[in-house]
């Protein structure tokens, strides 16, 4: 039995299938294990070579072990065959292995289906604009391969691509309507595999030497903020994250949650802003110090950190308010104060001794604070991304020997000093500063803006923010990290570029990305409701959304169908070309009667316009072939012949 599917594959289809395979798998090479990308590349090259040399495809007995080997490799690498990474790796391997098995039409169909599916997997890794553009292009290539597969030998490369592009263009309005109107649900439509949210960098809930200096090397964006009014001055831009109260000699950790609500006394009018936070897998948000309590969707814990119910697994947008001048917990529980005086026993003796010596001299707590800050600003301390490694008594070593450190060193040393001097103190992690993008007015806060500072509790004033880094390097707070660090430090090039044009390009690109994030990726149920409201849909619910959706899709399909029919009747491409040829001939004063056959016209031209004879003969021949022969869809020859008419 010989069905269409079992037919032998046309040898000349193969380049299209290779292109489709390459376009759908290539971006995965960046995040897959090297051996996997290498293996797929090797198989791809081998398949190409076989095709080029017109060699026989390898037998099943070679392919089966190869598949088994690939499965074992994936199993060894990922410890599973399922999940995001392993699943995608399997698909990529199958795709490349299928290239060695392209015998029949059916094999090609399988490959193309796999290609369409693989397109989707790229969104697990990136939802950026370049990814979207690449995937649209890749989809067009896969569609072109499908057209070529069914188009026979007549389909030329360029028209095939153009046709595929046309199909993609026709799909766009449907995509837009579905995107805007399909009822949104919060969260993904289906559960993503466990490993889908891995490996996003960002501030963690602990602080140990080196944790911030690592972040400083990243120019990735942590959050974007849009203020309703003016952006507050830079030295007020402290983005509060986790507050760390417990110190074990090396690492700072937050204390277990307490239900006690914080009390905030606002000394300045509240500032409203909207913040888009990149996924960081934590249960707290970064909020401008100090967040105003009473937020609807999230809580504020006793250390004034804004918390969420679930870890932030995807980019999210929040409307928040803050007061930059405030008094925080003037009345503090004694338990909390005690906790913030605790130090690990028998560690850092010199630091403790120094602080205790201050305690005896100074009676006022503020004076002690100033003394410590004066220590940092005066005594040859350096601000650097590359501090030396510290031993067990890390604070002692830092204060008395190395004196070189990043913000976490200064914050930690300062808090230890304060606690030893009897002043409740703790470390606050977060970000400081940010850069205003002049294109869209958003304040962009990057990972390199990650910062640690201290908070001390002073009687009558409550918790007061103290930033010891500012004493060492005032530039850090006023100008950002790139200004604060000497040129020899290994900051990412993006941050240190000072050329205006490069900066402008970066700003524009980030503004475009931000718009994409805000408008497209951030199109959530709330935004949809708001948008539909603006469209005049008073009460958008599932029911009338479905009706609207069905109506619009129906109208679109109707419009497309009508257009297709119109185009078919009006512009049969062969006839269209023939009429354009007749128009050209008419310029030479030769008119064709509607009943006159092309051959009759040709004979007439031989007599009336001998100079046109050979050019028009080519047109007539190509036209008759295209219109009346059994299986000819070759428009190219006709088009070329017409182009040669005077």
């Amino acid at each position, binding site marked *: 039995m010989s069905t269409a599917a079992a037919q032998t594959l046309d040898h000349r289809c193969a380049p299209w299938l290779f292109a489709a395979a390459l376009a759908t798998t290539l971006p995965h090479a960046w995040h897959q294990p090297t051996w996997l990308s290498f293996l797929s590349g090797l198989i791809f090259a081998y398949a190409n070579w076989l095709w080029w040399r017109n060699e026989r495809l390898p037998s099943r007995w070679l392919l089966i072990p190869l598949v088994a080997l690939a499965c074992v490799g994936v199993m060894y690498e990922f410890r599973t065959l399922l999940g995001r990474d392993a699943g995608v790796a399997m698909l990529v391997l199958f795709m490349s292995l299928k290239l060695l098995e392209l015998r029949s039409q059916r094999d090609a169909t399988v490959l193309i289906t796999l290609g369409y599916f693989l397109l989707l997997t790229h969104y697990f890794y990136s939802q950026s604009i370049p990814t979207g553009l690449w995937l649209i292009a890749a989809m067009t290539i896969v569609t072109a391969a499908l057209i070529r597969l069914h188009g026979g030998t007549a389909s030329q490369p360029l028209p095939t691509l153009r046709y595929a592009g046309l199909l993609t263009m026709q799909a766009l309005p449907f995509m837009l309507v579905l995107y805007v109107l399909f009822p949104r649900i919060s969260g993904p439509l289906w559960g993503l595999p466990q490993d889908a949210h891995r490996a996003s960098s960002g501030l963690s809930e602990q602080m140990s030497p080196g944790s911030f200096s690592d972040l400083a090397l990243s120019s990735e964006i942590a959050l974007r903020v849009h203020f309703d009014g003016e952006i507050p001055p830079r030295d007020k831009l402290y983005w509060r994250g986790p507050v760390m109260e417990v110190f074990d000699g090396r690492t700072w950790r937050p204390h277990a949650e307490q239900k006690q609500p914080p009390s905030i006394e606002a000394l300045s009018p509240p500032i409203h802003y909207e913040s888009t936070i990149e996924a960081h897998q934590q249960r707290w948000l970064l909020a401008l110090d100090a967040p105003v309590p009473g937020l609807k969707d999230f809580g504020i814990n006793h250390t004034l950190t804004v918390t969420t119910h679930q870890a932030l697994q995807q980019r999210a947008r929040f409307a928040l308010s803050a007061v930059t001048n405030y008094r925080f917990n003037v009345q503090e529980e004694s338990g909390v104060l005690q906790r913030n005086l605790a130090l690990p026993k028998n560690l850092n003796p010199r630091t403790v001794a120094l602080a205790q010596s201050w305690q005896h001299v100074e009676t006022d707590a503020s004076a002690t604070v100033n003394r410590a800050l004066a220590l940092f600003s005066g005594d040859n301390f350096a601000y650097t991304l590359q501090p030396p490694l510290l031993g067990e008594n890390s604070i002692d070593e830092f204060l008395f020997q190395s004196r070189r450190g990043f913000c976490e060193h200064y914050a930690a040393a300062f808090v230890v000093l304060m606690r030893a001097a009897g002043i409740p103190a703790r470390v606050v992690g977060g970000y400081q500063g940010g850069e205003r993008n002049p294109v869209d007015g958003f304040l962009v806060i990057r990972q390199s803006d990650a910062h640690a500072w201290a908070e001390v509790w002073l009687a009558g004033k409550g918790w007061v923010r103290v930033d010891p880094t500012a004493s060492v390097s005032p530039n850090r707070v006023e100008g950002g990290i790139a200004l604060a660090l000497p040129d020899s430090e290994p900051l990412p090039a993006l941050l240190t570029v000072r050329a205006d044009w490069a900066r402008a390009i970066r700003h524009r690109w980030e503004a475009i990305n931000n718009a994409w994030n805000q408008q497209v990726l951030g199109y959530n149920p709330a935004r949809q409701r708001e948008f539909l409201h603006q469209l005049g849909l008073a009460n958008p619910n599932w029911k009338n959304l479905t009706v609207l959706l069905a109506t619009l899709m129906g109208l679109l399909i109707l419009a497309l169908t009508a257009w297709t029919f119109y185009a078919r009747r009006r512009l049969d491409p062969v006839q269209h070309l023939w009429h354009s040829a007749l128009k050209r001939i008419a310029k030479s004063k030769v008119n064709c009667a509607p009943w006159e056959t*092309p051959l009759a016209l*040709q004979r007439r031209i031989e007599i009336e316009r001998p100079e046109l004879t050979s050019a028009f003969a080519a047109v007539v021949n190509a036209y*008759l072939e295209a219109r009346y022969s059994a299986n000819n869809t070759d428009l190219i020859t006709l088009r070329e012949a017409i182009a040669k008419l005077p």
Partner: protein
Amino acid sequence: MLETKFSILTKRAGPLDHLLAAAGKIILGKDREIRQALACLLSGGHLLIEDLPGVGKTTLAHALARLLGLNFSRIQFTSDLLPADIVGVSIYDREKAAFRFLPGPIFSELVLADEINRATPKTQSALLEAMEEQQVTVEGETRSLPKPFFVIATQNPAHQIGTFPLPESQLDRFLMRIELGYPDRLAERALLAAGGQRERADQLTAVLEASSIPALQAQAAQVHAAAPLIDYVQALIEASRQSPTFQHGLSPRAGLALLAAARSWAWLDGREMVLPDDVQEVLPAVARHRLRSIQGSGMARGEDIATLIHNVPIP
């Protein structure tokens, strides 16, 4: 025709060119009519030649029969001709004490029915039945006619005395009707100089074997008629029905005949597809005897067919 590299425009060697050339030496200056007759045969249809006596109707039939290797019989139709004279009779054989069928002249591959309109309608219809059914029934027994079976009927113009004009329904049985007409000056001169074309026709040798004709007919029927071409044929038929020139339009059978004839015409040109030119070429021969002019009682004139062609744009 033009010498080009284009397959459609170049005059190609048709499969039966040598046959046409040989026939052209006998019936001088009538290449087009010979080609029409051959196309009619290839389409499996029958041919009606209508013209004055002595223009070469019989010679054409003779020449075709010879060249195609067909066995040939001629029936001269007269007013006293009976159906049995055509199909044959059963006579009693005394020795065998049984009836024996003596086949009539119709049991030939090519039958020339000369002056068909001189016979009575009864006899005419006996022939036309046989043409349509490809078989004859004598005394309850059905006998198949040979394959191929091809009738060339000739008739004198209807206004001559002592004729029984064929009714339209009978005319429709003929795929084509052609007129030979007088030869042009050059051909006439050559004819006069050479003389005795009829004898030369009898001396022709066969170019084909009769048994190969069904295969050729099948080939001709395979010629591709694209959708736009069928549109054109349909437009012509519809126009004939709408036209005020004709009493009634072309029948579906006429449409099929037109397409079949156009296919054979294209095949004779060595082409694998039918062009509108082919349709226009065969249309007068296929349509004229099936259409009746509103003015006067006769069949449609050649000019009416030309008007029909000019009124139908090629889709």
